[in-house]
């Protein structure tokens, strides 16, 4: 057998990350390259592992609520909603209507904020620096509403089990309407900057194609699945928190490539504004907290509740043994499962496309590693 040298080997192994700025955090990807072509990828995750699920086993149900905000920190409100709904199902209580409508408004605002961050970072990765500054500016307005509502901007801890802790503040409706009015023309501006731009189209169209069968095989959910043409949105499929009352469309794409995912997410922001406008019109009067005991001791049993987080299906599986703390708490994070399709999409692409593909998955490493 002849001795192989470095020069003979056709495959080059290259490390991308964990400090690479385009990996959106601390994701390490081992790329196998043939020239510029990617022959295979391997993700190394766990650099941001904090053992959130284990922490959940050592905290009471109320005490764990602030920790879920720290998984997907771009969409902390959605995380909190999923957790609260799961524990409420375990306790067999429902939040009062006023709380449910307020929850929908805040969650949809958070979806827009999360998509704005995605848009800015995705564009930055591809080389368009300008949109990042604009989306941060608009996101600021949404975060200001969170700050005025619950006192925190990013890790909000906005919802409590059984409803809300804070009553909505005096000018809440006006502020939300003002943000909606502000955002629609701004989204049109991002369209002008990017959608028709030939560099943007050249970098995105036909890159990272994942068709509907592959999406289902990998368990990919959220905008990635919808971009492949599957009309699946948990807000429509299994409505929670009163989503069945609102009239909105599920945007879908055709090809399942990166450009379709971009258009789907842009349209989702507009649909979120539509939901917020409907919700803010009719916030019912009444209590904001259901009658639940101070010390929560859910009955023995297990429950799985999933919601449509900005990144996909976010599920909470809680096993209760009748004590004040969960026996087991498992989170189904959308980013973690969507990330598994990276290898399928990146195979055969170029290194520069890998950056575009990571951007389009919209991962948050806090959620991947938990």
């Amino acid at each position: 057998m002849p001795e192989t040298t470095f020069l003979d080997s056709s495959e080059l192994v290259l490390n991308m990350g964990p400090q690479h700025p385009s990996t959106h955090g601390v994701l390490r990807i081992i790329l196998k390259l043939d020239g510029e072509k990617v022959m295979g990828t391997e993700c190394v995750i766990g650099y941001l592992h904090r053992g959130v699920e284990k922490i959940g086993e050592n905290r009471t149900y109320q005490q764990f609520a602030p920790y879920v905000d720290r998984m997907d920190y771009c969409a902390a409100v959605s995380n909190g909603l999923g957790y609260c709904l799961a524990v409420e199902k375990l306790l067999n209580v429902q939040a009062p209507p006023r709380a449910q409508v307020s929850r929908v408004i805040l969650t949809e605002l958070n979806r827009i904020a999360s998509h704005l961050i995605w848009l800015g970072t995705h564009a930055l990765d591809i080389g368009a620096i300008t949109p990042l500054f604009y989306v941060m500016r608009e996101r600021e307005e949404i975060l200001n509403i969170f700050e005025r509502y619950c006192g925190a901007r990013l890790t909000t801890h906005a919802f409590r089990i059984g409803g809300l802790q804070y009553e909505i503040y005096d000018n809440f409706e006006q502020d939300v309407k003002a943000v909606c009015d502000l955002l629609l023309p701004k989204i049109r501006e991002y369209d002008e900057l990017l959608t028709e731009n030939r560099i943007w189209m050249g970098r995105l169209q036909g890159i990272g194609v994942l068709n509907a069968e592959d999406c289902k095989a990998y368990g990919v959910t959220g905008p990635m699945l919808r971009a492949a043409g599957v009309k699946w949105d948990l807000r429509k499929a299994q409505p929670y928190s009163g989503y069945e009352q609102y009239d909105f469309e599920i945007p879908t794409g055709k090809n399942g490539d990166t450009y379709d995912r971009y258009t789907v997410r842009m349209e989702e922001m507009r649909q979120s504004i539509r939901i917020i406008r409907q919700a803010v019109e009719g916030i019912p009067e009444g209590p904001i907290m259901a009658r639940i005991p101070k010390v929560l001791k859910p009955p023995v049993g297990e429950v799985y509740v999933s919601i449509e987080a900005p990144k996909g299906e976010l599920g909470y599986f809680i096993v209760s043994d009748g004590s004040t703390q969960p026996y087991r708490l498992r989170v189904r994070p959308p980013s973690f499962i969507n990330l598994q399709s990276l290898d399928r999409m990146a195979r055969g692409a170029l290194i520069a496309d890998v950056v575009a593909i990571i951007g389009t998955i919209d991962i948050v490493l806090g959620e991947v590693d938990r």
Partner: protein
Amino acid sequence: MRKFLRTIFLIDLMEGLRVTFHYQRPKYIYTEQYPAERPKVAERFRGAPRLNINPDNGETLCIACNLCALACPENLIVVGSERNEQTRRKELTIFTYDISRCMFCGLCEDACPVDALELTQDFEMASYTREGQIWDRQMLEEGPRPTRYKY
């Protein structure tokens, strides 16, 4: 034909550049000159904790019930109390709060039955030592004193 003309005259790029140059006007400058001009945080902002005192007689409002320490997910509050034999009531002796581990979730504030513990609008809590992050009762009552710079 229209698409061809758009390609020739780089219309798509020009549209984007129009947006960019539109925001070059000084009217749209958003920079906050932080130490000189302080941001006005919201009324409900969850910042530095404060142990409220009764403004009339300067006594603490805390009844040493220990509910905040039980509510805290990080177990960072320590409440010490002593029974006063004359009035037969519990009196607060020590109260420490570890800022370095606090995540400002607001659960202690919600748990307090007498509104003694409160998260305030102060957000400048840096210190040079780790010990400086563990606030005792006096520090909690006075609040942080960040340096104010003159410009």
